[in-house]
């Protein structure tokens, strides 16, 4: 079986992966229906239980939609994937800036961030111009955005406004763009398979989130950071994190890694994803909100789904680049 999987061509591996995830979702959907029908049979179901089950079902349904969108983008190849992540960045930045108190003086800067910076950053990935991709935002946008804002001559909270916009742009555009940037890495003995590595990355991040949620709900007792993120528990983190690392190790055959390396990479993804979730939750709360938005039913906003991706992607990207490219 394993030999068979290792020897598949990238396309076949891709279908196996999509099929595998679809199978997982089918199981999740079935569990949801089962729980619901069992609840319906009870004479007096508790409100909390029915809410949890309802939330589970909407979440799984949203996952089906996300899998379909991802599948279509992947089938469309590099262009489709780059466009998909550009759109994700757009929605993420829209959520971030909506909650950020900006002033009229920031208007031009913000328009340019949305309509110039996002397309440019993803175009650079598409044409595989690595150097400019990696400095466009930390160097050029960092310096030029305040230059544009300053022309409006509004000094009220200038530093705070500028810093917040820069954070939004870094997280929503720069960090998230490191996921599709995996496509431009010339990985040794892995030509033409980078989409699989991106799939691997997304699968580990999201699986880690989901498994932490599941383990947390089943066994969660010790809260890790009750003020920042009341849903995160130590039991969830350990149970979910270790399972995600296990899955990562078992998926080594779609990556350029050995099983052990794959477990290490998955650990880095899980840890950064967890920390990213915490930091983004703290930011969200300091901006006075509970959810980033309500785009994805059951999940909250785009950034509620991408918070762990934004922290894990750049680290994973650079680990792969340092250890696995010539």
């Amino acid at each position, binding site marked *: 079986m394993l030999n068979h999987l290792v020897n598949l061509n990238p396309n076949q591996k891709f279908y196996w992966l999509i099929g595998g995830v679809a199978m997982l979702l089918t199981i999740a959907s079935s569990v949801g229906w089962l729980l619901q029908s069992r609840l319906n049979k009870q004479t007096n179901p508790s409100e909390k239980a029915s809410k949890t089950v309802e939330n589970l079902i909407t979440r799984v349904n949203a996952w089906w939609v996300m899998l379909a969108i991802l599948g279509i983008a992947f089938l469309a190849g590099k262009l489709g994937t780059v466009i998909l992540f550009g759109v994700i960045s757009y929605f993420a930045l*829209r959520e971030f*800036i*909506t909650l950020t108190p900006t002033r009229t003086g920031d208007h031009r800067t913000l328009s340019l961030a949305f309509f110039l910076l996002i397309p440019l950053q993803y175009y650079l990935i598409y044409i595989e111009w690595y150097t400019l991709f990696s400095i466009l935002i930390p160097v050029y946008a960092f310096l030029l955005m305040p230059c544009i804002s300053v022309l409006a001559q509004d000094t009220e909270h200038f530093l705070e406004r500028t810093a917040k916009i820069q954070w939004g742009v870094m997280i929503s555009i720069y960090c998230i763009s490191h996921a599709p940037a995996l496509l431009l890495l010339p990985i040794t003995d892995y030509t033409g398979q980078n989409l699989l590595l991106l799939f691997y990355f997304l699968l580990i991040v999201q699986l880690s989130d989901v498994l932490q949620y599941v383990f947390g709900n089943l066994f969660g007792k010790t809260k890790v950071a009750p003020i920042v993120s009341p849903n995160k528990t130590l039991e969830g983190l350990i149970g979910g994190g270790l399972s995600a690392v296990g899955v990562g190790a078992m998926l080594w055959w779609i990556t350029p890694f050995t099983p052990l390396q794959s477990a290490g990479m998955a650990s880095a993804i899980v840890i950064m994803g967890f920390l990213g979730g915490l930091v983004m939750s703290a930011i969200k709360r300091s901006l006075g909100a509970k959810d980033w938005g309500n785009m994805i039913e059951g999940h909250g906003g785009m950034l509620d789904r991408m918070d762990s991706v934004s922290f894990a992607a750049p680290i994973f990207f650079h680990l792969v680049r340092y250890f696995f490219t010539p």
Partner: protein
Amino acid sequence: MLASFVRISIIALVKLLIGAQPRWVAAAPNLAQSIYFTNHSSHLDTWALWVALPKQIRLKTRPVAAKDYWGNGVIKPFIALKVLNAVLIEREVSRHTDPLAPLMEALTQGDSLIIFPEGTRNTQSEPSEFKGGLYHLAAAFPLVKLVPVYLDTLHRSMPKGSWLPVPLICTVRFGEVISLAKNEHKKTFLNRARDSILKLI
């Protein structure tokens, strides 16, 4: 055919740009004839409210637009009249014509309306003083429901003088229906109407 194609495209574009998510704060959406009155801070206001309305309500709700702007050329009247089904009014008040006449006519026909009682765009998140139009409409059509609406981010999305919008999620908040009390003074009513929007902030 062309109009409905343009309509669907505009609705998709508005959602992509500013979300225009409705939130019915006080009551569920109601098909009864209504005047939706809202704060006015950008060119996107009409679109946001219009898109946020449920389709059945949107079909019978007509935004009010300025004739001197929307009446000129080919494309603008097409969008105003065919796509939005807007009621065009004169901004220049002359002594011979009643600027509210087209609105009264639409209300008589049973249509619902979207109006901006401030008359002109302002740059703040809070609406400025209301003009008298809302009062006259309320007095002439006591059975029509007056629904206050607050548009929360559009003064930041497209402030006066800007030509490119900033995409921010606009939540369109529909508040509690108000009505003109018996013998209520014009000024009192207009302040109360403005307060009903302020309550939604």
